[in-house]
């Protein structure tokens, strides 16, 4: 995908930084390697449902503050997707790219 106002690396870093902060705040162990393969939610993943809610809100706020974009991550569409966009860091970055593309009209 091209023409997005935010690069994939920036988005990936944003998600990983948010994840690290959420884990720290909730006193959970932080794995040495956090990358796009890291599982966020579901079996064997890092976040429980409350931590995921916090993560979604945190990301919405950071995207607005850092890039001036107001996104709603947890809409009905996201919740009804068979492959949840919240299952891993990579899936979430894909989803963010899609939303930002729609928001900025570059898709």
């Amino acid at each position, binding site marked *: 995908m091209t023409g997005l106002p935010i690069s994939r690396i920036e988005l990936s870093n944003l998600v990983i930084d948010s994840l690290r902060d959420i884990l720290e705040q909730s006193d959970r162990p932080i794995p040495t390697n956090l990358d796009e393969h890291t599982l966020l939610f579901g079996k064997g993943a890092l976040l429980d449902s409350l931590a995921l809610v916090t993560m979604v*809100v945190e990301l919405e*706020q950071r995207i607005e*503050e850092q890039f001036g974009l107001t996104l709603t991550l947890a809409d009905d569409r996201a919740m009804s997707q068979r492959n949840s966009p919240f299952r891993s860091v990579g899936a979430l970055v894909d989803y963010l790219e899609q939303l930002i593309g729609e928001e900025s009209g570059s898709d």
Partner: protein
Amino acid sequence: MTEREVVLITGSSRGIGRFLVEHFLQRGALVEGCARNPIDWELPGYTHHHVDVTNESQVKAMLSSIQRRHGRLDIAINNAGIAAMNHALLMPGETAVRILNINVLGSFLVCREAAKLMRRRNYGRIVNFSTIAVPLRLEGEALYVAAKSAVEMLTRVLAREFAPFGITVNAIGPTPIETDLIRGVPREKLQQIIDSLAIRRFGTFRDVAHVIDFFVNPASDNITGQVLYLGGGG
């Protein structure tokens, strides 16, 4: 981040909302308020937002502005509301929708966006408005009572959902207070309500502020999901 306590009051242009603006300014807080109409007054420390609480994007923009300018929100008071006294058989559908939207949807949107801001400091106090008309099952106020019942349940459930973020959510149920909200209610009907209370007098703005002061006190951190009625009629 602003050092002073930041308070948001909806429906702040007049009546109880306006009184609460001055009440919190006197406490030394910075006060943010909103109403559907512009206001013709100014007070130092007060910022007005021209916002309809049922409009999601306007509510979000208002809370973003508070975050940008102050970096915190300590207290949110969901005072905005409307009532319409009418027999259910004569209640227009459009009025019913407005009553539900402003009282229920409006309170929900402000609670949600306020909590997003409050959770960043793991602290917050939200106070919603119910009414004594709920426990009295007041005839002629079916939609208003239904909407405020919904606000009470919203308060109780959000109290649980927001507790992990250090946010309490409570509600006050005032007795009739002489404001625009009860302007259209016949005097004998109001007297009937007053007569059914343990303490038979009209409520005052000060009564409301007193309960709110209790709910928003930092020491009230173990008090959430509660509805407190004035006048002993609950």
